[in-house]
């Protein structure tokens, strides 16, 4: 048995894990679930020695173990297959499987390739991998690469294997095969820790589900007779129906119209529009093309065809600069650390970056007093918790960073705002505040907003209309959402219909 006791882990500005206790049994498929930022991956990194807990202990069959690195975890028969595929494409299947112990296959001074290939074959047989050990990995499909990673994990004689969203890069057919293999592992007495967002998959495959929320352990249930709603309730801490914010006074006027948007290999003649003062939701799974579409509209990436009509006039946008300065369109990125904020710069600089051109005096000097004023106003409006406006953004908590990332576009005073996954990795309090803010932007300032979110409750709560995306297409539209109260379960099942 692998037992975690009171594990806590603190990162700058956030308590990622708060005395979590959990145990995993051999021969058990144990699912670990939770929203983004709930602490799943941090916990897994602690189990595999990549992170060290700030407090708490780990026991293996009753014996306390301490792990300082991933190597230590492997020594203790714990292994992990990470979400991203990590194989060396230029090497052979066998080489990838024995990679971490390749020094054990030395024959005086040269590698014993026969022994490497034989050893790899054993584990390939174990999971039914019908390839030759000498095949190059380069041209194999994602599923094969995942399987190679599992063979690699098994070849270290792992008794516990962590699978981090293993099916996210697999097709339906590949997934079926993959699940067979996991069941095989279970029969052989391996403890499988299965991280997934797909509730149906978890219910059909796993023996037990444990849920984390905001870094805390919520509880564990056996999967038998467990319903989807039960898991969701544990994950988000309440029933899925949210209090309604009411209806928005949406104008008939279309501020943005996208006609026949085409990008070869991605979109084929996509059409949609945005009305003044509405919140248009984009729902879809990760990889359905929502972010790519927005990036192409604002000129961050190139498209191959189609027209853009802004405020009734034809528009051509070639860069983010043009989108902002000529058309007043702002895009709040889903990826604040890489695209949204310069973490080493102050709050002032990060918020001010979009407005410098507008606050020049006669000799084209930036009026720093006006800059400070605007930034101060934004800090108030967004309730950003920061020691001073000169504080480096990187030292703020995730929620406050996200607020700064939104604030810079509010400061720019855009009429059309595209907001991409605004509450990923944000704590509950900040989430509520960001929701209110988005709502008030539409209600009080008549901003027109496109909201991309994979968080269905969030989208249903805020959006007055939802477009459903699947495989680079708009597969459905829900246009009855601008009402005083919304029926969550009806709306979500309606979206579900479009997706299948």
């Amino acid at each position, binding site marked *: 048995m692998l037992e975690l006791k009171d594990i806590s882990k*603190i990162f700058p500005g956030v308590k990622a894990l708060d005395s979590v206790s959990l145990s995993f049994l051999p021969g058990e498929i144990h699912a670990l679930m939770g929203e983004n930022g709930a602490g799943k991956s941090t916990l897994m990194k602690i189990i595999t020695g990549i992170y060290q807990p700030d407090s708490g202990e780990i026991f293996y069959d009753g014996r306390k173990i301490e792990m300082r690195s991933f190597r230590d975890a492997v020594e203790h028969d714990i292994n992990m297959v990470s979400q991203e595929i990590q194989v060396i494409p230029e090497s052979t299947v066998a080489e990838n499987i024995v990679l971490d112990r390749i020094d054990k296959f030395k024959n005086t001074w040269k590698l014993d390739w026969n022994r490497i290939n034989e050893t790899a074959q054993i584990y390939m047989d174990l999971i039914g991998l019908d390839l030759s050990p000498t095949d190059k990995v380069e041209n194999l499909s994602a599923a094969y690469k995942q399987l190679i990673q599992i063979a690699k994990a098994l070849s270290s004689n792992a008794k516990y294997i962590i699978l981090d969203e293993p099916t996210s890069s697999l097709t339906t057919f590949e997934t079926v095969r993959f699940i067979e293999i996991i069941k095989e592992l279970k029969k052989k007495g391996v403890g499988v820790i299965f991280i997934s967002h797909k509730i149906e998959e978890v219910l059909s495959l796993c023996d037990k589900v444990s849920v984390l929320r905001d870094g805390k352990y919520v509880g564990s249930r056996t999967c038998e007779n467990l319903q989807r709603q039960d898991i969701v309730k544990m994950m988000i801490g309440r029933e899925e129906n949210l209090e309604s914010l009411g209806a928005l006074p949406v104008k008939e006027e279309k501020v943005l119209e996208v006609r026949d948007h085409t990008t070869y290999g991605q979109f084929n003649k996509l059409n949609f529009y945005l009305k003044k003062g509405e919140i248009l939701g984009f729902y879809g799974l990760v990889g359905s093309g929502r972010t790519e579409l927005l990036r192409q509209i604002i000129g961050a990436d190139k498209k191959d065809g189609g027209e853009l009509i802004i405020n009734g006039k034809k528009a051509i946008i070639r860069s983010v600069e043009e989108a902002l300065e000529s058309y007043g369109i702002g895009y709040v990125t889903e990826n604040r650390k890489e695209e*949204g904020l310069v973490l080493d710069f102050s709050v002032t600089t990060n918020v001010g*970056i979009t407005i410098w051109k507008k606050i020049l005096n006669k000799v084209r000097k930036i009026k720093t007093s006006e800059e400070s004023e605007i930034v101060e106003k934004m800090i108030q409006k967004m309730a950003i918790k920061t020691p001073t406006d000169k504080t480096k953004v990187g030292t703020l908590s995730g929620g406050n960073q996200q607020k700064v990332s939104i604030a810079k576009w509010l400061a720019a005073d855009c009429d059309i705002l595209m907001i991409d996954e605004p509450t990923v990795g944000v704590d509950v309090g900040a989430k509520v505040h960001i929701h209110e803010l988005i709502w008030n932007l539409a209600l009080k300032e008549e901003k027109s907003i496109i909201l991309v979110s994979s968080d269905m409750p969030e989208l249903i709560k805020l959006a007055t209309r939802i477009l459903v995306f699947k495989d680079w297409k708009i597969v459905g539209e829900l246009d009855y959402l601008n009402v005083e109260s919304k029926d969550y379960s009806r709306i979500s099942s309606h979206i579900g219909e479009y997706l299948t």
Partner: protein
Amino acid sequence: MAGDLRKRLKKLLGRYEVTTILAVLLLGCIFSLFSSSFLTSYNLFNLGRTAAIYIFISIAQALVIIVGGMNLSLGFIGGLTVVAVGYSIQEAGIPPMLAVLIGLCVGMIAGLLNGIVITAFRLNSFVVTLATSFIFTGLINGISQGYPYDQIPPSFTLIGRGGLFSVPYVLWLAILALAILGYVFKYTVVGRRVLATGGNIEVAKMSGINTNKTIILANVGSGLFAALAGILWISRTGSAQPSTGADWMLISFAVAVIGGTVLKGGVFNPIGMFFASLLIVMVKNGLVMLNANVYFEQAYLGVILLLAVSLESIRFLLNRKKMKRHLKEQQLIEGKGKE
């Protein structure tokens, strides 16, 4: 009151350039103690002149480091400028003022070439400027055939050799350049955008900044300052040597980095650069004064550079530790508050 003062003193000592200033003072004391000729007005004047040239060279490097790049070719841009000016005056008979303008244009065009290749083909500035280094060297050798142009009119050396209030003109110029750049990076849109590009190019792009423009601009600026350094070098020596600039690349990095220009970009520190150039010049000069073996000079400079960069890293690690402790305490307090 005393605590307030201590806090302020601590904050002052925490500033990056303070370490460099202290090092300059310390070295100054040591050298003047052990050598009677160090603290003479003649020697100090000379120190100032060399430091000024180093400031221009390091500005040329810092400008591209700020946008997250580097310029290995700046010494050869300097050399090319020197040859262009020398050739114009001596072979083409162009008046000196015009020759200077030609030289500046040559520098800016060379920088423009770097910038355009880097942005148009999305190449790493290391490889691009490495390649253009060869091009510029080839041009220098081809045009000059290796011979110096020494028929430079005496009026040309006025700026390089004269001074005001016993401070060389070139040093005044260098200080002026640092002050102007300090203003540009603090108060102008262009300057701020260049800094933001270096801070994080993706963020800058997604915030509506034309990052190609800022990168090209930084490279043109780099060429301009390399050219200025070259022209001032002619003015100082009174002849246009094609070998000018061969040793600039290492010096430019050393001064910029010791002066607090963070290699990953986004930071400009004029005061730090001023004192860093003094530091390097003093080490070189002081060692001669102390009769140290000058053949080892580069080794001493290397050690100082290593010390300077490690200092930055050590400071970063200490800060992180402190921040972590602070956050932990804060969370403990918050936790108690909830209970």
